[in-house]
């Protein structure tokens, strides 16, 4: 493996002293067999006011590297070699006590998950004030005033009210703004942003990244951006550092790396990343003439109300959604959290009774089903969930997991079950040796294959894929998408694909419904919706997809699409 550690000076006007200089960093974790090294000889530079993106898939060591910089490695982690120079001072060997003095003031953190990154039992104001109190920034009244200033600056409405509220009373985007306020409070030289928007909706992600950009310009703060999303990195970073298995694959100015990647791995990463430039590789012609005759799913005017609190308050989660899905094609339901996409799917699968409307799946009126007919209906439609780590029982072997649906239905004899399980495992591209293993012995991609095998073992007509590739790394995501495509062609399956990721949707589906606040704001063929969106919301959604900005003069979309 060739490790390129040449660091080119991107421009001449930056000051000569980098804010952060990591050289030959090595980090290990204590495991069963002593320390295992997960970060090897990582070197990089962050200059004042610059954004450097650490890009890589899960397990690449990007978060570990970032944690090592701020001295917050997990308890079993250890910085084994190398230097971490902050404004020229090596802080690699510093004690926690010494680091406490610079954390929050010279170097700060924007964490990944805003929902769990604020203390649930303390007010927003108290948590912003804390960083000022720790570093003794003025009197009580001064701090209180500063907190309101900061909350105003990060764009929170009604900052005085927000300061008195608790985290659960704020949305995810608002919480991330609070965390940004904490990070910039003391105008640090460096902010480490660890996947700062991965848990947020696309439109919120864009606004948050814009805010970080804005504050960075205002305060002259440098940012080390850790992300798995090449689009985000391409949009926001001056400099890219690509990590794989704890080693730097290549690094350089963003435009250069994207336009002419030197390492094979970067090329693969760029090719696998979903982007707006990609459409269905095999474009199937959907003929409107047979419309209505061969529809696998028909949803008409679906309405779903929920009562909240008292009996009088009714919340309409889904409001008049209609679409049809032709057999053998893929229909995507797109929307952000709270859009009603999950509720729609739960009605279609028969998990809940809709308030009104009509649903037919494979000719069956879903709303008339109950008891055993509803149970039988599950043979027709099967689900694959988002999280392959949570949707498989850790105590069952892969064979038991895939076999279970057969036991629940016709329960064929043992040999036939074994034959069926083996056949379906082949089908989804898993080795037979996986049969005796348990989920924890498999990778994320393999687990999702198991989940697909479990869904397919009953020979269903329709497969509902609820964010089925959202939790996977891009290279694995590309493999699973290819598998789904192949299965659809071989078995004539109909897919209902639920996703928040428009780029993936464009890549896999034929038709699409865009939901917003329970209403269907756009629907039709994917190409029509993407090229000529009718609603302002769809336009905003498409505009929020990362990887479209050209800060460095390169069209990432085109360069990524060109890889195919």
């Amino acid at each position, binding site marked *: 493996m060739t490790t390129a550690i040449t660091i080119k000076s991107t421009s001449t006007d930056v000051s000569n002293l980098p804010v952060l200089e990591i050289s030959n960093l090595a980090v290990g974790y204590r495991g069963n067999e002593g320390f295992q090294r997960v970060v090897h000889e990582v070197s990089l530079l962050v200059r004042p006011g610059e954004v450097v993106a650490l890009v890589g898939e899960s397990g690449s060591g990007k978060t570990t590297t970032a944690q090592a910089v701020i001295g*917050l490695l997990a*308890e079993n982690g250890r910085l084994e070699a190398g230097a971490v120079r902050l404004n020229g001072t090596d802080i690699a060997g510093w004690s926690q*006590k010494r680091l406490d003095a610079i*954390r929050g003031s010279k170097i700060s953190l924007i*964490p990944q998950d805003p929902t769990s990154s604020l203390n649930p039992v303390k007010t927003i104001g108290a948590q912003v004030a804390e960083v000022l109190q*720790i570093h003794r920034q003025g009197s009580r009244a001064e701090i209180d005033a500063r907190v309101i200033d900061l909350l105003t600056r990060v764009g929170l409405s009604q900052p005085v009210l927000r300061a008195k509220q608790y985290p659960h009373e704020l949305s995810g985007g608002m919480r991330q703004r609070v965390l940004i306020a904490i*990070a910039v409070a003391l105008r640090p030289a460096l902010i480490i942003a660890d996947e700062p928007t991965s848990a947020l909706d696309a439109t919120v992600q864009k606004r948050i990244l814009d805010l970080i950009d804005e504050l960075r310009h205002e305060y002259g703060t440098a940012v080390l951006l850790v992300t798995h999303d090449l689009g985000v990195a391409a949009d926001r970073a001056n400099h890219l550092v690509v990590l794989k298995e704890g080693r730097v694959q290549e690094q350089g100015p963003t435009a250069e790396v994207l336009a002419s990647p030197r390492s094979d791995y970067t090329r693969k990463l760029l090719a696998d990343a979903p982007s707006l430039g990609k459409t269905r590789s095999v474009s199937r012609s959907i003929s409107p003439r047979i419309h209505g005759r061969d529809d696998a799913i028909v949803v008409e005017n679906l309405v779903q109300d929920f009562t909240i609190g008292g009996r009088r308050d009714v919340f309409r989660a889904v409001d008049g959604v209609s679409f049809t899905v032709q057999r053998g094609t893929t229909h995507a339901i797109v929307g952000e959290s709270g859009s009603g996409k999950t509720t729609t799917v739960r009605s279609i699968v028969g998990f809940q009774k809709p308030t009104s409307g009509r649903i037919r799946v494979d000719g069956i009126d879903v709303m008339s089903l109950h008891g055993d007919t509803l149970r039988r209906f599950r043979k027709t439609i099967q689900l694959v969930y988002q999280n392959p780590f949570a949707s498989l029982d850790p105590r069952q072997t892969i064979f038991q997991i895939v076999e279970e649906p057969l036991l629940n239905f016709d329960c064929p004899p043992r040999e036939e079950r074994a034959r069926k399980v083996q056949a379906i495992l082949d089908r989804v591209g898993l080795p037979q040796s996986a049969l005796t293993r348990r989920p924890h012995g498999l990778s994320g991609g393999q687990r999702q294959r198991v989940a697909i095998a479990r869904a397919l073992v009953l020979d269903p007509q329709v497969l509902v894929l609820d964010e089925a590739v959202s939790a996977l790394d891009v290279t694995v995501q590309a493999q699973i998408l290819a598998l789904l495509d192949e299965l659809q062609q071989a078995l004539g399956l109909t897919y209902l694909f639920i996703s928040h990721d428009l780029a993936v949707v464009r890549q896999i589906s034929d038709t699409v419904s865009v939901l917003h606040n329970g209403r269907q704001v756009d629907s039709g063929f994917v190409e029509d919706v993407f090229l000529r969106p009718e609603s302002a919301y769809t336009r905003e959604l498409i505009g929020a997809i990362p990887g479209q900005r050209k800060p460095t003069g390169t069209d990432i979309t085109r360069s990524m699409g060109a890889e195919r």
Partner: protein
Amino acid sequence: MSRYVIGRIGQAGLVLWAAFTVSFILLQALPGDAILIKFLNPELGLGPEQIADIRASYGADNPLLVQYVHTVANFLTGNFGYSTHAGVPVGDLILANLPPTLWLSTLGFLLSLILAVMLAALSALSPFSWLRSCIQSIPALFISTPVFWLGILLIQIFSFQLRLIPIINPGPWQALILPVVTLAVPISAPLAQILMRNIDHVLTEPFVAVARAKGASHRWVLWKHVAKNAVLPTLTIGGILFGELLAGAVVTEAVFGLNGLGGLTQRSVNDQDIAVLQAIVVFSAAAFVLINLTVDLLYPVFDPRLRVRQGAVA
């Protein structure tokens, strides 16, 4: 909010009624009764007719349902009946035996809280992982210590060997010291275990990393962020443990010869004194229900997430 409170109180009432009814049925199903035990004694020389008369005067020959309705009505008016064995009102009997148990369990519970918090704090602040795992194994030792053995051991050491606490005619406070310690040690174990586990869990929460990234020291984080989050889940188990204590520390009272509810329960079972047992069951259930109700109503005070949301929904 008030609707929630009324609902919880209603549930509490239901639990009390169920406890009463179940115990009534079970106690009536027992073979024999206190009247037979007391008056069938051959030395009294009572004939079968006389015993039947006595039974009638106690109302023991009424149909079960009539007895049930009677007892419910009496309990509701605060009349718990008479002890067949001692011949005094059951209410007086319980009141007389309550203070030692109340002191014992309250002090025992407080001491167990202090022990649990101390253990948890020591483990959280210990700088070495080997020391922490040592401290974390102490609760397992505590919980597997038999109460009667610990009580006797404490008496051996402090009363007989060191002669610090007189065993004959101790003062009212001196008499409580050893039983309180005996009671507190096993009770502190589950509390400490839950507390330690919660602390370890909260320490892995992302908001702790954010606090550290603000420059907060380990102690600051423990005190200002971890403590409250770790204590919240222990409230429930604390309430249950305290309820169990009140319901009777039979063994501890027996070892130290205290005249509490535990002792009373034990004697009443021996004598099949159904009226007393029925009242004790209802009293224990009431104590249990009341403590748990208090805990449930206290939760929203400590945890803002459980307060009823005001204003518009999302």
